[in-house]
């Protein structure tokens, strides 16, 4: 059983388009995250939701909008895609007990 799943795994699109990435976790965790990993492999936290409430909102363009319909799902919608948005986006989840984060397989977004 997949613990944290993301769809799609690959996304190729044109500049200016709007796209969404979906994430689901079946671990019963109460907190979910979105990370961006650039070409140099740097992991940057974007957002964190705890029980559907936005907790962390780092300096991210407002073209990026997360949405958590319930605590098992966290989606990321990106408007007006730009070349610089090309990266791998990871979803993760955690429970309070020890801070360990479980990651999805990542979505490689390529903006042409």
């Amino acid at each position: 059983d997949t613990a944290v799943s993301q769809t799609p795994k690959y996304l190729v699109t044109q500049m200016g388009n709007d796209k969404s990435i979906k994430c689901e976790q079946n671990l019963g965790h109460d907190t979910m995250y979105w990370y961006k990993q650039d070409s140099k492999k740097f992991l940057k936290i974007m957002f964190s939701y705890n029980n559907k409430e936005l907790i962390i909102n780092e300096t991210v363009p407002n073209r990026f909008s997360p949405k958590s319909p319930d605590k098992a799902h966290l989606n990321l919608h990106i408007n007006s895609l730009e070349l610089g948005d090309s990266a791998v986006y990871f979803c993760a989840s955690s429970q309070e007990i020890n801070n360990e984060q479980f990651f999805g397989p990542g979505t490689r977004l390529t903006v042409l």
Partner: protein
Amino acid sequence: AQTVTQSQPEMSVQEAETVTLSCTYDTSESDYYLFWYKQPPSRQMILVIRQEAYKQQNATENRFSVNFQKAAKSFSLKISDSQLGDAAMYFCAYGRGNAGNNRKLIWGLGTSLAVNP
């Protein structure tokens, strides 16, 4: 603010040998967790090992062990009997204890490990 530093952008090791990846961190807190994550070419992020700051004993998981020096704020990862499958990017991360619902991890920049046959 907490920081995590991995001073070795790249490392290499011969198959079957031992390699140590370094990680230092800065914090004024006493309750925290430290992690090593592995990211192979498949890009999946995999937890390798976790250390609770209140535990004096160094964590061990099979061929992976840490040298946790709390006073020196050092958390190095030792990989024994290196295998080709150990080739990956390794990330060190720090997480606050009792963080409540704000459980942001602080990440190092990573160390790329090559394993030579």
